[in-house]
């Protein structure tokens, strides 16, 4: 095996019959769990007097997976109120309790978070003033990169961060003190075994008799394991005293999870556990078992900090999931929000759509009546409105709308990335198709043409097959690839291909780029309607926006991906499609292809 023990390979097969190899894999797993602490942390060795965990820092962030304990201690605000704080991390948001009426709220609330190299690591902390009746107001926020924080060489247990006003110019409105430490992986393993053990340790003696052990295996829901309980019990009971202790159970779980996992899914949340990722499984289970036990001071179940701040209304349904909080035909009042996953920040964000727009869109796109009205002249009306809007947005007067537009999307338009200063834009349309500074959108693996890249700043949906896209997203009954590409382009090459949808929102950078390198074989313009391409319409079975809207279809011939159909689809108001490359051009991935602008 050479120096195999020094390597960490979670993808090793567990089906080998070689006992040496088996032992070696178990050893590697244990190394993976245990030796990390020597690689990553320097224990300070003291508790801080508030009963918090001893402060553990990371020595290296490479290949890290573990539990971070984030504690929101207190804040110093500029005025008195009753305060609550939220931590948004990955797909969840947690909130503290509400403080007394004070300028210096103290929460001392902690939350365990799963932290790993490729997972989310930036926590957003938001502080709200609370209201008894109306929704709570966001007063200040800050962001902290937990991996970076934990790897800093600092003597202090706590850090004080400035809270910024969410509105420009983002003045400092207070300060928040927090601490973050890594839970010892051995502690994690022990706590996990203890939690598991406590499920069936009826007489609470810290040991499992065979009947208790038998119940535990049944609780895991693994039929194979259930059929050989006695064998497993004997394997666990190392000293043969007829009971399984905490340590023996921990050893069994570590060894067994390596060979043949006892648990196929989490007994708490039901999530399937990846066979290849034992450490993360243990961490997941530990976090899940901790929920609702009182061990965690912050409450969770929110998707975004906006939700956590809704006040009394949201308390009626604290546990939300985006499937019940989505747009679409049956989503009721929640259709005024779209939840999207920010790939860069690795967390859910909420986009608010104006309530009036939602109501009108639902009335038009999600009912037969609305769409019948569409056929009675509304199509022409949409075209006419879009053309008029295009002319208006090309006028010099439209430039005065730019500051208001930027203010409306203050969190989502970063003027530091824009190539030209605000004064450069003489019309709204010029600003709408603004260029970005060179380098602010680096192209992934720029020299490797076998890596495709995203074609726009957008909200993306990707499906391995057309069938998947129809099952999960595109509900229009008449959708087909041939319909999308139009009569002049054969869809044969794309049958059962993969489909990616790049949806641009008004505030986005509106230029689109090539996802792959190759030659442009042809560009075909297809006239059509200018329905909205909002998910409300895409998710409607009565509406076929992708096959009825005005669009331009380009075929890019690429040596690495074969033919790629690139369909630019116009929408209400934004119906003008301009290309900066043409038929026969050789294009590099990431290069600008064209832009959408206001017009018909």
């Amino acid at each position: 095996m050479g120096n195999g023990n020094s390597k960490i390979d979670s993808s090793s097969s567990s089906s080998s019959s070689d006992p040496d190899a088996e032992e070696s894999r178990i050893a590697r797993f244990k190394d993976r769990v245990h030796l990390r602490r020597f690689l990553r942390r320097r224990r300070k060795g003291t508790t801080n007097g508030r009963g918090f965990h001893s402060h553990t820092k990371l020595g290296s962030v490479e290949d890290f997976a573990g539990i971070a304990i984030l504690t929101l201690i207190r804040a110093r605000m500029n005025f008195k109120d009753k305060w609550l704080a939220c931590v948004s991390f990955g797909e969840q948001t947690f909130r503290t309790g509400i403080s007394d009426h004070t300028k210096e709220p103290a929460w001392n609330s902690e939350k365990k978070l799963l932290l790993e190299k490729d997972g989310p690591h930036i926590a957003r902390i938001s502080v709200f003033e609370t209201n008894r009746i109306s929704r709570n107001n966001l007063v200040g926020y800050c962001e902290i990169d937990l991996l970076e924080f934990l790897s800093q060489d600092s003597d202090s247990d706590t850090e004080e961060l400035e809270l910024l006003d969410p509105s420009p110019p983002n003045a400092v409105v207070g300060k928040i003190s927090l601490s973050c430490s890594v839970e010892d992986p051995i502690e994690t393993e022990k706590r996990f075994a203890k939690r598991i053990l406590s499920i069936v340790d009826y007489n609470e003696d810290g040991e499992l008799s065979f009947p208790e052990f038998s119940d535990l295996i049944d609780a895991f829901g693994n039929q194979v394991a259930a059929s050989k309980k006695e064998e497993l019990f004997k394997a666990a009971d190392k000293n043969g005293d007829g009971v399984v202790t905490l340590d023996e159970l921990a050893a069994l779980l570590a060894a067994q999870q390596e060979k043949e996992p006892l648990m196929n899914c989490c007994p708490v949340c039901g999530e399937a556990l990846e066979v290849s990722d034992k450490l993360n499984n243990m961490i997941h289970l530990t976090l899940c078992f901790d929920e609702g036990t009182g061990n965690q001071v912050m409450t969770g179940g929110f998707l975004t900090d906006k939700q956590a701040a809704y006040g009394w209304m949201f308390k009626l349904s604290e546990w939300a999931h985006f499937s019940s909080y989505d747009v679409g035909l049956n989503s009721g009042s929640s259709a005024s929000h779209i939840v999207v996953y920010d790939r860069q920040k690795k967390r859910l964000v909420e986009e608010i759509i104006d309530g009036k727009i939602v109501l009108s869109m639902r009335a038009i796109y999600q009912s037969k009546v609305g769409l019948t009205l569409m056929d009675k002249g509304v199509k022409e009306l949409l075209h006419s409105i879009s053309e008029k809007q295009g002319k208006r947005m090309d006028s010099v007067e439209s430039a005065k709308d730019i500051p208001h537009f930027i203010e409306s999307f203050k969190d989502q338009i970063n003027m530091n990335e824009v190539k030209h200063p605000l004064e450069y834009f003489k019309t709204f349309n010029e600003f709408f198709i603004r260029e970005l500074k060179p380098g602010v959108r680096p192209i992934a693996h720029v020299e490797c043409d076998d890596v495709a890249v995203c074609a726009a700043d957008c909200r993306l949906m990707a499906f391995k097959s057309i069938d998947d896209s129809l099952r999960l997203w595109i509900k229009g009954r008449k959708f087909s690839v041939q319909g999308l590409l139009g009569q002049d382009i054969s869809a044969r090459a794309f049958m059962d291909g993969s489909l990616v949808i790049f949806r641009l929102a008004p505030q986005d950078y509106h230029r689109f780029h090539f996802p792959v390198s190759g030659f442009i074989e042809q560009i075909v313009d297809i006239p059509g309607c200018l329905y909205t391409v909002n998910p409300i319409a895409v998710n409607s079975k009565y509406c076929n926006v992708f096959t009825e809207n005005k669009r331009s279809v380009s075929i890019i011939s690429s040596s690495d991906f074969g033919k790629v159909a690139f369909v630019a689809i116009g929408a209400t108001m934004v119906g003008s499609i301009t290309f900066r490359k043409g038929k026969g051009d050789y294009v590099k991935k990431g290069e600008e292809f064209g832009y959408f602008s206001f017009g018909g």
Partner: protein
Amino acid sequence: STVICVFEKDSIQIDEDLLANSSRSLETLVRVGTKLGLSTRKVSQTDL
């Protein structure tokens, strides 16, 4: 406005995180130029 890209069958291995979110009907906020997926054609051509 929207761009749709259609790839030939088995020509691209789209990044798992994007597929996973989409399978939950959850849109992913991405930026232009970030990785979308890998070509699978070279692998299959080599295999052949």
